[in-house]
């Protein structure tokens, strides 16, 4: 159509007037403490955005024609203004997709949600059986998610999504997970497990094996209706077919994240000072950050292929995921730690013990420290 055709992905890498996929975490508070939580959630941040600030951000997103927001957390439904803000967002023409562990979705709330115009729901579940799921998400979380799904089904919500972070323990359960989604008339959405947040501590033991990565790739090629949110673009390096989606790192280009206190990061998986672009609380608001941040400008420039320059698959996988590299301590132009050509393993093995970046304290709940009480000396009379 144009005289000199450029690839769509090249055009997208140069950045857009507004994000296509904007994740907005509404709170760091959470009733669970999943071992892979990318935002190390647990405790509410006392500085989180007020209802008025949330409404103002919605107004800005509406003005920029952001089509929908991906709401997460923490557990977003614990905010007392949860319904108020989603209803306001839908009213302003910004659709809402939110992720939840399901704890709040009672029969009454499910009916309320079913009555809303543009609200999509993703129920997080990380295993096809209780033992596999609860080992990652905590005791009782499997039952909680199932209660929520039952309530949504009874309320006639329609097709919700079941969202799974892929680990070496649930990749073998992919057919059962697809069958579970079918039983509910739900859509299955699979996400790559990245070593972000608390996930940095558990990534080495939970990440898929190389064989599993290939099995998953073949499985996804056969099932274009399984959603992945472009999560597995590093698997394109296998070169046996393209997975649906844009297959590129969208950080700062088509994707970004607003955290509960209004800080803007390049993507949902890089909650770290180095990838902070600004704050919606600053003058200029969200648009000011999206259009003016130095970090975003740099991410939209052509990137160096670095150590991957001589690999024939670079065009397909683009060197993989920035967040995965960063949090294991690899340089950003190194191969993805899970490079399908096997170039990640030697790179990982060569890392020093202190290579991993230092993360802030996060919002994890304090771990109870066992204390021994010694009997008090009886009072003398």
């Amino acid at each position: 159509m144009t005289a000199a055709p450029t690839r769509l992905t090249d055009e997208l890498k140069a950045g857009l007037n507004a994000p296509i996929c904007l994740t907005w975490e509404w709170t760091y508070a959470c009733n669970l403490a999943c071992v892979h939580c990318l935002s190390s959630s647990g405790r509410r941040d006392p500085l989180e955005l007020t209802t008025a600030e949330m409404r103002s951000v919605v107004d800005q997103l509406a003005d920029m024609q952001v089509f929908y927001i991906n709401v997460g957390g923490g557990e977003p439904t614990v905010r007392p203004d949860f319904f108020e803000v989603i209803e306001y967002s839908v009213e302003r023409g910004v659709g809402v997709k939110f992720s939840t562990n399901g704890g709040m979705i009672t029969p009454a709330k499910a009916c309320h949600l079913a009555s809303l115009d543009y609200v999509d729901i993703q129920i997080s579940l990380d295993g096809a059986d209780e033992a596999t799921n609860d080992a990652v998400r905590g005791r009782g979380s499997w039952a909680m998610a199932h209660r929520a799904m039952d309530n949504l089904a009874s309320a006639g919500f329609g097709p919700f999504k079941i969202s799974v972070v892929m680990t070496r323990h649930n990749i073998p359960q992919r057919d059962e997970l697809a069958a579970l989604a079918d039983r509910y008339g739900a859509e299955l959405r699979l996400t790559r497990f990245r070593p972000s947040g608390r996930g940095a501590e558990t990534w080495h033991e939970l990440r898929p094996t190389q064989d599993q990565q290939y099995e998953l790739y073949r499985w996804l090629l056969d099932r274009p209706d399984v959603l992945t949110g472009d999560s597995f673009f590093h698997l394109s390096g296998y070169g046996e077919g393209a997975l649906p989606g844009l297959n590129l790192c969208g950080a700062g280009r088509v994707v970004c994240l607003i955290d509960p206190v209004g800080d803007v990061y390049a993507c949902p998986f890089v909650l770290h000072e180095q990838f902070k672009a600004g704050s919606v609380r600053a003058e200029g608001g969200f648009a000011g950050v999206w259009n003016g941040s130095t970090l975003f400008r740099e991410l939209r420039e052509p990137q160096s292929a670095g150590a991957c320059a001589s690999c024939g698959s670079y065009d397909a996988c683009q060197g993989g995921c920035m967040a995965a590299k960063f949090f294991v301590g690899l340089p950003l132009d190194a191969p993805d730690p899970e490079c399908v050509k096997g170039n990640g393993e030697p790179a990982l093995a060569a890392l020093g013990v202190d290579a991993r970046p230092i993360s802030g304290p996060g919002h994890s709940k304090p771990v109870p420290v066992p204390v021994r009480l010694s009997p008090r000396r009886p009072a003398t009379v």
Partner: protein
Amino acid sequence: MALRPEPFGALAYHYGNRRLNFLRSPQLLTLVQRLGEHPSIDAALDDAGIEPRRRPTWVAALARLAESDFIEEVTS
């Protein structure tokens, strides 16, 4: 359905089926925006000044949009 102008053309989003389409030229965006003002696709292409030899590409682009319900034929 919403159209958002972008450096490469526009993004089209369908709130009903949640599908996203890329209109990869500003000219296509203008064509789509003015489609409703014309009785036929040919008339719209005439108005947009698209030469006959390039029309099959444009018709194909419109067909893709129709397939995902972004545009539809109006019968009067």
